[in-house]
């Protein structure tokens, strides 16, 4: 990888700043400035947390339903099966993130191997 390849184009870095850095730092700095007067358990923050969680859930679904790059080479049923298998193990192991991730990965790799 050359230096130019590692940096990529400057346009993408500007997009990162505008669409990635600013939208995040705004909320952190607002928390720093106005934080004192807000009740952590307020109804507004319950709604905010619920929407933020649902957006994250949507991202998880997007990666599995419309997979990027190499993940697109895995058949639909196998991707969904891997997430389901991971979820079952996660619940059976009293919410072990590690066990869930390993189970999902093993399911996917075993399925790929099985299908040839």
């Amino acid at each position: 990888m050359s230096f130019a390849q590692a940096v990529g184009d400057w346009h993408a870095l500007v997009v990162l700043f505008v669409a990635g850095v600013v939208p995040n730092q705004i909320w952190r700095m607002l928390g720093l400035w106005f934080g004192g007067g807000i009740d952590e358990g307020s109804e507004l923050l319950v709604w905010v947390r619920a929407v933020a969680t649902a957006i994250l859930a949507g991202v998880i679904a997007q990666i599995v339903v419309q997979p990027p790059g190499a993940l697109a080479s895995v058949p639909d049923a196998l991707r969904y099966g891997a997430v389901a298998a991971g979820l079952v193990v996660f619940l059976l192991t009293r919410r072990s993130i590690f066990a869930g991730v390993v189970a999902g990965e093993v399911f996917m790799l075993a399925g790929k191997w099985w299908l040839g």
Partner: protein
Amino acid sequence: MALPPLDSPQWNSPWLAFGWGLRSITQTILTIVLFVTYLGIGALAHDTHFSLIWALCSTLFVWAGPAQIILITTLGSGATIVQAAIAVTVSAIRLFPMVVSVLPLMRTPTTKWRELIFAAHLTAVTLWVECHRFLPQVPRERRIAFVHGLGCGLVSVCLVANTVGYVLAANLTQTLGAAILLLTPLSFLFSTARNSRESADVVALVLGIVLYPVAAKMNSGLDILVSGVLAGTIAYGVHWWRQVRT
């Protein structure tokens, strides 16, 4: 490794406190979860044609895994800058209550707000969880230095993970590349499920997953936002209804 007692001379300088913070990353399973997640983010950045420096800058300056994934997937699937910025802004609201709840743990009566800027930047879900666990064992006047150490340690782990994931995705077979990309949805799903304590969180997580494919059919470019606001509002409705009933 146990942290020294509150009155130990080990807490006499901010640098020692920084060191204890740095070493504390070895005391939590969340470090491994972060490593795995950022391995996936590195691979995702590679497969959606972003540069390695871009991926590292996003970790350094955004420092919020979900926001980084939303940014990469929305831009990668052809959304405009404005659409990506809106989706990231809405998802990042979650940082606001985290900063609000974590900074009072570090503040002393003489703390100036500018001393807290870096700690606010480092605040994301992992640091937020660990602060509530570790800070009671740290003398109050050393907590900012401790958090700086802890945060810098976690960021460093993630920068290494990004680089490893990026290079692996570029050089591995398709199957192993797919395995690394699959780490991201799995680790996010299970760590979010683990952090879901109230019924509203669980409903939001499940509905958010179920509604996304429906919203995607509209092809508005704001699919994630549409399904997120809808699912989140229904989840809030469930929470409200349960409160009213009791």
